[in-house]
């Protein structure tokens, strides 16, 4: 089975790193993976994209992802109908968001039940635990809530390979908290 994820965020939020971490965690779980960014002009705050493929078979495609199974949104100001373009029916939207749930559906231009929608209080938790604005690892907590893609222990391993201490441990705490506080609406 091939799972394709499209990540939306802003330059500086760690979109590419998030994609790499999830790919690494999936690879530690025995999957074939691919993770790559779509670079525009490299500037902080600009909308950026990243892509992850996770598969049981070797991955034989080198193009961007047009029909993802999962869309992850690291910054709620990016919510718009355009962002869910191409999402497969029955697909999943995981967004950083705290607040009135109706707002999310309104901004995305979708109805309840069209897709699975998971909301992660990523900004809130990241500010609390890391005291920065890079919501990337918190969003991985949201993905873990799905229960299939990757396992927590493999995410932990990927984080430990990527960050040194004490940052790794803090990120792991953040991932776990985010997983607990993610809600499906």
């Amino acid at each position, binding site marked *: 089975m091939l799972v394709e994820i499209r990540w939306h965020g802003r330059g500086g939020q760690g979109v590419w790193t998030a994609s790499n971490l999830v790919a690494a965690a999936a690879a530690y779980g025995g999957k074939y993976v691919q993770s790559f960014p779509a*670079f525009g002009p490299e500037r902080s705050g600009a909308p950026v994209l990243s892509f992850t493929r996770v598969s049981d078979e070797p*991955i034989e495609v*080198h*193009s*961007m992802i047009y029909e993802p199974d999962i869309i992850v949104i690291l910054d709620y100001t990016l919510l718009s109908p355009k962002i869910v373009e191409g999402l497969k029916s029955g697909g999943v939207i995981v967004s950083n968001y705290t607040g009135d749930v109706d707002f999310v559906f309104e901004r995305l231009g979708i109805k309840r039940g069209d897709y699975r929608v998971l909301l992660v209080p990523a900004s809130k938790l990241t500010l609390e635990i890391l005291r920065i604005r890079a919501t990337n690892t918190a969003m991985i907590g949201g993905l873990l809530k799905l229960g299939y893609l990757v396992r927590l222990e493999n995410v932990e391993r990927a984080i430990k390979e990527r960050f040194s201490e004490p940052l790794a441990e803090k990120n792991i705490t953040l991932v776990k908290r985010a997983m607990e506080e993610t809600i499906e609406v």
Partner: protein
Amino acid sequence: MNILEFKPKYPREKQIMMLLNGDEAVAYATKQSYVDVVAAYPITPQTIIVERFSEFVANGEVHTEFIPVESEHSAMSACIGAAATGARAFTSTCSQGLALMVETLYIASGLRLPIVMAVTNRALSAPINIHGDHSDAYLMRDSGWVMLFVENVQEAYDTTIQAFRIAEHPEVQLPVSVHLDGFFLSHTMENLYVLPDEAVYEFLGGPRKLVKVKVDYFDEEVDYALNPAKPLSMGMLAFYDYYFEIKTQQVEAMKRAEKVIVEVNEEWYKLTGRRYGDGLVDPYAMDDADIVIVVMGSSASTVRSVVKKFREKGVKVGVLRVRSFRPFPHKTIARLLKEAKLVAVLDRAASPGSMGALYLDVISSLYMEKEKPIVINYIYGLGGRDLSPLLVFKLIEELAEDLKRGFVPEEKVVRYLGVRE
């Protein structure tokens, strides 16, 4: 050899699974290749190669002398100097950097110095663009470098190591460039399997071995290297008296490289269990194919994945990935394509005033055949424009229509794929 009993010397369980992007894979391969000198100047999307390698140097993980030069012209000049003394030298660049290097590329090949260079294929300005196409690669087409195009991260690793063997082979002694598509491979992380260090060391036969040359003032043959104890000159003046002979020797060496690429591909297979077609071309579903798509680099994956779907529907379509652009395997390509009915050659760079460079090579390969297919040229993916599966789908449908018609009007021989009208 019975294929069922074949086991590589280092089967997968003896290799190490890593997660690297194309740039990191090239840097890691270079780290394992016992390189004496790396001289490089960073340029997107090659930057990670230089960053990673300079980390290996800073950590004391390699014995390499790393020269952070002030330009790509200097990078290649430093590699030429190092290789002339007998060192194994490596550099990497792309696009504008490669353009600045062009003058020295011809010197590296003319002096027969087995330098290896990774090129993270990127578009040339203007307009300025950092993304992947083959216009920089085509710029060095006639520079006398062996040019190998890779399809994925694993192959970027494998080919970088192979490149040293090919370059340094006594019958070749030519510089080799390894081409990986900017961003599509340079910045794409994939699983790959790497060999233990000692296996790479053994495959390369340790440090660079020098070839012997005859110099009239020594009785015995001497190493082809600048050595004060056995002095010789490189890069002498050669006018109409000798220039021509020296150039034809380069041409002959390039022909011999064809055989060496095939041998090294087989040897790699015995070592790792991985090979890429015959090393020169990597065919897929070609046996009974009416339609064949010829392509180089990372797009080959996307094309093949769509071709598989058409095959399931019974459409007789195949893929011929060209891995060795220089030397261009004319005979192999003619043999593989002559029985097809329709061939589409995909070029990721335009040649204003002519046709795609890959296309021209393919049609010239077929010219001497009595029976030959219709051959169409598609220019695609300029400036990193994505070749999506949908676009490949439309391409194959268009080709199926052409085949049904059995005829392609002259004005439709060269087409664009994925451009806005």
